[in-house]
């Protein structure tokens, strides 16, 4: 089982992406949001990311982390370094775009794919045409 952690600069954004992804899988995939410096302040918070990773690791074999902008990536990397060395290989940071990536990842996780398989599908998500040709 793979769990997802959503890291974004806004608590609302992270919660919203979690809500969208959960609608696809209805509780079959553990999804945790770690957005904002706190509920009301934009930014990222390594402690919040760390807590979300720990909850995700407790419920899943692997964790895929989806992120919005650059410093979310730095925050996630730093949070991973704060965890015990033996659990770090169970966590993977995704190259995928946040919204499309999270939805594809949730669906793939719900059918029992590994983190590596899920990541490949989530990255592929950014190539799906959004607007019809000529639209």
């Amino acid at each position: 089982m793979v769990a997802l952690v959503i890291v974004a600069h806004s608590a609302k954004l992270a919660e919203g992406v979690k809500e969208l992804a959960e609608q696809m899988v209805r509780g079959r995939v553990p999804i945790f949001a770690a957005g904002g410096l706190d509920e009301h302040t934009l930014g990222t918070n390594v402690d919040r990311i760390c807590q979300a990773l720990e909850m995700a690791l407790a419920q899943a074999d692997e964790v895929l982390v989806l992120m919005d902008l650059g410093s979310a990536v730095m925050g996630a990397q730093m949070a991973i370094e704060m965890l015990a060395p033996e659990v770090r290989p169970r966590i993977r940071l995704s190259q995928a775009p946040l919204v499309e990536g999270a939805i594809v990842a949730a669906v793939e996780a719900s059918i029992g794919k590994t983190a590596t398989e899920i990541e490949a599908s989530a990255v592929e998500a950014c190539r799906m045409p959004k607007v019809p040709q000529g639209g």
Partner: protein
Amino acid sequence: MPVMRDDVVAWLERCAAVLEENRDYLTQLDAAIGDADHGANMDRGFKAFMAKLPSVADKDIGTILKTLGMTLVATVGGAGGPLYGTFFLQMGVKTANKLMLTPEDWAEALEAGINGVIARGQARPGDKTMVDALLPALEAFKESIRNSTPFGKALQRMAEAAEQGMKATIPMVARKGRASYLGERSAGHQDPGATSSYLILKAAADTWANAT
């Protein structure tokens, strides 16, 4: 006198005061090319540390700097959180169990901090980031102590090089961070991260002016 533990505490207190004074200035710089939060972020982070300082002010320098790093990663919010968090954590690793710093200790700690920032942010010189103030400052300091310049004077050279590095970010086009989304439009503005790095190093030079 070398730099004693209490001098390190005085430096960090000065950093907190200087970042508070420059809160609006840093935010204005960031408003031009970023998300207009750098001044508020750094001020919030150092204020949070000042609240914790009494509990660690009698510990070794490494513990004090690691506490600062750990506080910043959870309170700064922007890219400055992981970057300055890594900077002070790595400095703290190099100064573990130390109660005083020689010029060589400071050079090693600063170098470790800067290497941490580069590893974390993957920025290179010329990318219009804090690295553009920090790296010339480190080089100037190391050069000064190689030439047997007294500690306090070498720190002054370090601060001057940081200031020049900071000003040199003005014409640069940002290749890292939120400012990179602006592309060419980021040129003509001084980088806020390079500016806060200068202020932090200048605070060390001002606080430790008489170190030998």
